[in-house]
C-alpha cells in the first residue's frame, strides 16, 4: 500500500502552498469561527404559522408522490391498518422500539401482526416515527438507532412514516440545532435520512418510474395536536 501518512502530508502541504491567500493563523481563526457560527445563509420564504406549514408540507410531499393523512393520536393504529387494507397489503408491519410507536403494539395488535427490529428481506411494510418533517420540500427526516432502524426506510416495499404535527419544521436548517442539542456539538447519529417521496428511477429512456430499489409507496401520517 502507498505510504498513507506520507501522501496525507504531501497533499496537505501542496494545498497549503497553493491555495492559501492569508497567513495561517488568520485562516485558522476564520475556519474556527465559520464552523462554530453555523451561519444559515439564505432561507426560502415560507409560511410562518403551523397550520400553513402543515399545508405546505402536505402539498410538497404529495407533489413528490408521497401520500399524506392526518389523524388524531387515538386513531393511529387504525390509520395504519386501514392504509394496508386499502392497498391490499397483508396486515403485518415491522417497527422499531420508538416509544411513540407503542399504540401500534397495543391497540394495533388486534388489527395486524406487529414485528420489531431491523428490516428482514421478507418484510412488506415498515413503519417508522420521523424526527421531523420539512415543509419546504415535503421531506421527512429519520434518525438511525434502535428506535427506528435505518433499514426499515429502504428494505420493505412500503414505508409508512409517522410525524407529530408540531415536528413539521419549515427548513432543513431548523433540524441541525435540534441535533446539536440532543447529541452534542459536532456530533451526529450514524445516519440521518432525508426522504422525499417513494424511490424512483429515470434511467431507462428518461421515463420516470416509481419503486426503484427503495420503497414503491411512501405514506406519511401526521399526528394532529401532537
Amino acid at each position, binding site marked *: *500500500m*502507498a505510504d*498513507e501518512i506520507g*501522501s*496525507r502530508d504531501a*497533499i496537505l*502541504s*501542496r494545498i497549503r502552498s*497553493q*491555495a*492559501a*491567500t*492569508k497567513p495561517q493563523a488568520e*485562516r485558522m481563526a*476564520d*475556519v474556527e469561527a*465559520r*464552523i462554530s457560527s*453555523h*451561519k444559515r*445563509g*439564505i432561507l*426560502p420564504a415560507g409560511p410562518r404559522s403551523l397550520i400553513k406549514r402543515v399545508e405546505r408540507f402536505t402539498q410538497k410531499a404529495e407533489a*413528490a408522490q408521497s401520500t399524506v393523512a392526518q389523524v388524531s393520536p387515538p386513531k393511529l393504529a387504525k390509520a395504519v391498518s386501514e392504509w394496508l387494507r386499502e392497498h391490499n397489503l397483508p396486515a403485518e408491519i415491522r417497527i*422499531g422500539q420508538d416509544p411513540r410507536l407503542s399504540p401500534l403494539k397495543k391497540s394495533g395488535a388486534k388489527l395486524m401482526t406487529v414485528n420489531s427490529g*431491523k*428490516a428482514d428481506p421478507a418484510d412488506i411494510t415498515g413503519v417508522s416515527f420521523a424526527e421531523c418533517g420539512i415543509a419546504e*420540500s*415535503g421531506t421527512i427526516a429519520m434518525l*438511525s*438507532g*434502535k428506535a427506528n*432502524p*435505518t*433499514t426499515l426506510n*429502504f*428494505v420493505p416495499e412500503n414505508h409508512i412514516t409517522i410525524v407529530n404535527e408540531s415536528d413539521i419544521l419549515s*427548513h432543513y*436548517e431548523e433540524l441541525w440545532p435540534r*441535533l446539536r442539542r440532543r447529541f452534542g456539538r*459536532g456530533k*451526529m447519529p*450514524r445516519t*440521518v*435520512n*432525508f*426522504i*422525499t*417521496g417513494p*424511490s*424512483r*428511477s429515470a*434511467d*431507462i*429512456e*428518461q421515463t420516470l418510474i416509481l*419503486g*426503484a*430499489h*427503495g420503497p414503491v409507496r411512501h405514506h406519511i401520517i401526521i399526528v394532529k395536536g401532537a
Partner: protein
Amino acid sequence: MEITSPSFKKNVHKALRDEQLQQAMRHVRSNFIQKRAAAADALPEFEALRDNARDIKNHVLENLDLYLERFESKVTENGGHVHWAATASDARGMVLDICRRVNAKSVTKGKSMISEEMELNGFLEKYGITPVETDLGEYIIQLRGEHPSHIIAPSVHVTMNQVRDDFRKAHTHLPKDRPMDEPESLLKEARAILRQKFMEADVGITGANFLIAETGTSIIVTNEGNGDLTQSLPRVHIVLASLEKVVPTLEDMSQIMRVLARSATGQEMSVYTTLSTGPRRASDPDGPDEYHVILLDNGRSNMLGTEFQDMLRCIRCGACLNHCPVYHAIGGHAYGWVYPGPMGSVLSPALAGIEKTANLPNASTFCGRCEEVCPMRIPLPKMLRHWREKEFEKHLTPPAQRRNLKLWAWFAKRPGLYRTGSRVAMRMLSLMGGSKKRLRKLPFAGAWTEDRDLPAPEGGSFVSQWNAGRRT
C-alpha cells in the same frame, strides 16, 4: 478507463452516425432543460442561493487543508477511518486492502464518478472480487461493458430496446417469454436481481456529494435508494470522495443542496439525501461495522491557485451537459474520458493531461449556456479558453486552427467585447442555421460538424434573454 480523447474527431464522426445514440440523446434535449428551468423559476431565492453556494465553496477552497484536517479528526473521533490517496492507483490499492482484510467476495456499489476515475471495477475483478453496480443506469452499462456517458444519468445513451436485449442476455435464468416491453417490467427485473446482491455483499462502496468538516459526515444524494442499501446492509462501508467535496457545516450543505437537485433533474429535493457519520453505534440494530473514507487528490490540489481553481466548486449536477448543444449532438462517450460535456472539457485536461485531451476544449460553441445554468457559477467558457491558450502555447494545435484561435483569443480576452461578441456569434450561428434552425458546420470547430446538423441557438444568449425578461 482507457482514454480515447486523442481520437476525439473520430469519436465524433462515429457518434453522429450512431442512430441509436441519436435517438437516445433526444430525451436529454427534451427533458432536462425544461425541468431545470421550471424548478429555478419556482424558487425566487434561486439566484441568491447560487451566489451563496459559490461563496461557500470559494471560502472552502482557500482553506481546504484546514477543513480536510477537521473532517479527518471528526471521522476518527466517531470511529471511522480516513485514507489519503494521492493518485487513482493509491486509492485502488486502499480499497483492495480493505476488501482483502475482511475477505470480501462481493462488493455492491452506489454511483460514483471517482470510482470511474479509479477504474475500480476492472481492478477488483482482477483480484477475484465481484463489483456490482446498483444504480439502475450503472447496472445497465456494467452489463454492456461500457462507461457512463453522463455524470448523473450514466445510461442516457442507451435505448429501451437495447436494455431489453442486455437483460435477456444477462438474466438467462428467467423465463424467455416474460413481459419486457415496458420500462416498468425492466426496472422490476433489475430490482429483484439486485436485491439478492445487496443481501450478499460484504462491502458497500458509495461516492459522496458532500463531506462535512463540522461533524465528519459524508453525504450521498440519490433517487433510487440503491446507495442506502449499498451502505447500510454490508459489514463495511467505503466512501470514495475527492478532496474538494468538503463544506464547513450542516448549514452550508443545506444551502448547496437547494441548488443541486433543481439544477440536476429539476426536482426540489432528490428522494434520498443521506448523512452518514462513522460506523454503527453500539446500540444500533443495523448499519456497517466499519466506515472508511478514501480522499482522492489525483491532480486536484494542483488546480488550486491556478486559473482552474474555480472548477473545484463543481457539484457534479450535470446541468452544463444537459444544456450543451455539443453534448446533445455527440453524447458523452465521444469525449473519451470519465467526465463529458463542458465540465469534463475543463476537468479532464487538468486530471488526465492536456496532451491527451487537447481536442476537448475545442468541443464548444461558446454559446455560454453552461455558465448560465451552472449552480456554482463556474466560468466554464473562460476556463475552456484558458485551456485553448495553453494548448496553443504548447503548439498542440494544427496551423489552420491556430489562425482562427488567435483571432478568437484576442476577442475573448477583452471582457467588454466578450458579451457583445457571444451575442453576435449567437446571431451568426442562428443565421447560418437558416429557417430549419439546424447547423451544418460550426466556425472553428472544423470537421466535426460535417456529419450532422446541430441545433442552432435560438433567440439570443441566455443572458440576453434573461435581461429581456424572457426567463426560459
